[in-house]
């Protein structure tokens, strides 16, 4: 399944990566070589095989409903790029 420029642009948009025209060309080449390697999978018959999401057949442990965290806002916001009145700031979002 060869990949085209439009696929790369769409993936870049979905992943919110700015990709220049030059970069896009390079990525199309790289990604096609990777997908060519990946496409070996298509040659294997997996009819009826249940997909494996986790390597161990374990099940989810449930946590008791207890409040264990207290505010660490100042610590958490120490590395934040833009904060005011305890809020994270982003360019205006229009709804």
């Amino acid at each position, binding site marked *: 399944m060869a990949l085209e420029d439009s696929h790369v642009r769409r993936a870049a948009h979905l992943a919110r990566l700015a990709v220049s025209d030059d970069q896009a060309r390079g990525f199309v080449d790289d990604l096609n070589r990777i997908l060519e390697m990946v496409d070996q999978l298509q040659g294997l018959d997996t009819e009826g095989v249940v997909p494996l999401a986790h390597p161990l057949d374990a099940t989810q*442990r*449930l946590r008791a409903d207890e*409040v264990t965290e207290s505010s660490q806002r100042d610590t958490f916001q120490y590395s934040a790029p833009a904060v005011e009145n305890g809020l994270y700031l982003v360019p205006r*979002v229009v709804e």
Partner: protein
Amino acid sequence: MMQWETVIGLEVHVQLATRSKIFSGASTAFGAEPNTQACAVDLGLPGVLPVLNEAAVSMAVQFGLAVHAQIPEVSVFDRKNYFYPDLPKGYQTSQMYHPIVGPGEVEVSLEDGSTKPIRIHHAHLEEDAGKSLHEDFHGMTGIDLNRAGTPLLEIVSEPDMRNAKEAAAFLKAIHSIVTYLGISNGNMAEGSMRCDVNVSVRPQGQASLGTRAEVKNVNSFRFVERAIAFEVERQIELIEDGGKVIQETRLYDPERDETRSMRTKEEANDYRYFPCPDLLPVVLDQAYVEHLRGQLPELPAAKRERFERELGLSAYDAGVLSASRDMAEYFEEVKTVCGDAKQAANWVQGELSGALNRENLVITQSPVSARQLGELVSRVMDDTISGKAAKQVFQALWNGQGHSADDVIEAQGLKQVTDSGAIEAMIDQVIADSPAQVAQYCDAEPEKRGKMIGYFVGQVMKASRGTANPQQVNGLLKEKLDALL
């Protein structure tokens, strides 16, 4: 003229009333300072991992059992990937392919007293997002992530509703079930329950569905009706004018009472759902589900039916009194204390509901407790006080004057006088003081006397400061006046 049929499906997001978040130990309390309840996990800091809250699971299962749904043994969390500033990890942990609650059904009550079954497609657990605050921070938007990670149960109906009233009734039924179960506070004003409506129209008799619009932000029972009304009219007009409904997301604006398209220049999203590798499959064994089933309270539909069948209430009264668990519990306590369902129903729906509405209170905030009201009703039923005095007692209890009906009756001397000797003495005094009225009474046509007796009753009641039993006064007066003819 073409006849159109409306087809409606609802997606209801219910915030579950857990103490902590679905995947972290941060508090879910409403109204805290911004970002003080967003812990490392809620913020999606590098390296953090989710652990599932047992209460969120049990609440979802309780809901499923309440709507007679299948509870699959295995459910799986998936990631829904998209970028938005109030979504810290760049994905929402949700359940796409294996939800915790399978197909079910809700019986909703319509205004004409009939009921209609609405099918539930499924319900799944997911995490809530934070909030964007659009006040002006130098042209920036502020992000508060306190709400991020609050557990949500998204309940998805089948497109079984055919008009706005049915949709509102479905939403009320869901509200009633989740509050009965105590799994949500159901507070729509605070966003604890939010609703998206899928609306389409089709020519009457057509089997296939029309193209639907998804209307977001429909967050009150009233808005559901209004948003649907607007959307149905818009779609019909559009089609009749030769246009086509497009599948899109629209936003309901309550201020303008309209829906408008949310489509932007950006291409449609692709959420790239895949199983969340940080969470393992949730496996619910039969014993756990049965344990929860055993703990289910009596639900609104069953309660309504019992109120009609066992207590002899009208369909309307039974519906109103069973609509909320708090209301039903209050009513049942009043009934138990006074021993009479109909009297209890009259008082709860009459005097009490009137007072609550006037002061904009919900039943749990009532200054008059169910026990107090029950005792008050008992005192009316055993003739200790008159109906009129009872209203006075109720008001006094409402104002916090006295701990019980008996306290107020005692303090205000409202005990009904039933001693016929005392009443006779008052009557004799009134007759003696009203010679002109007595003469008129005697001269009047017999059929007009009945009306004229009211004057004497009023005088006697006044003399007794309302404590004389009116029926008794009426009977004795008639006897004594007729003796004068």
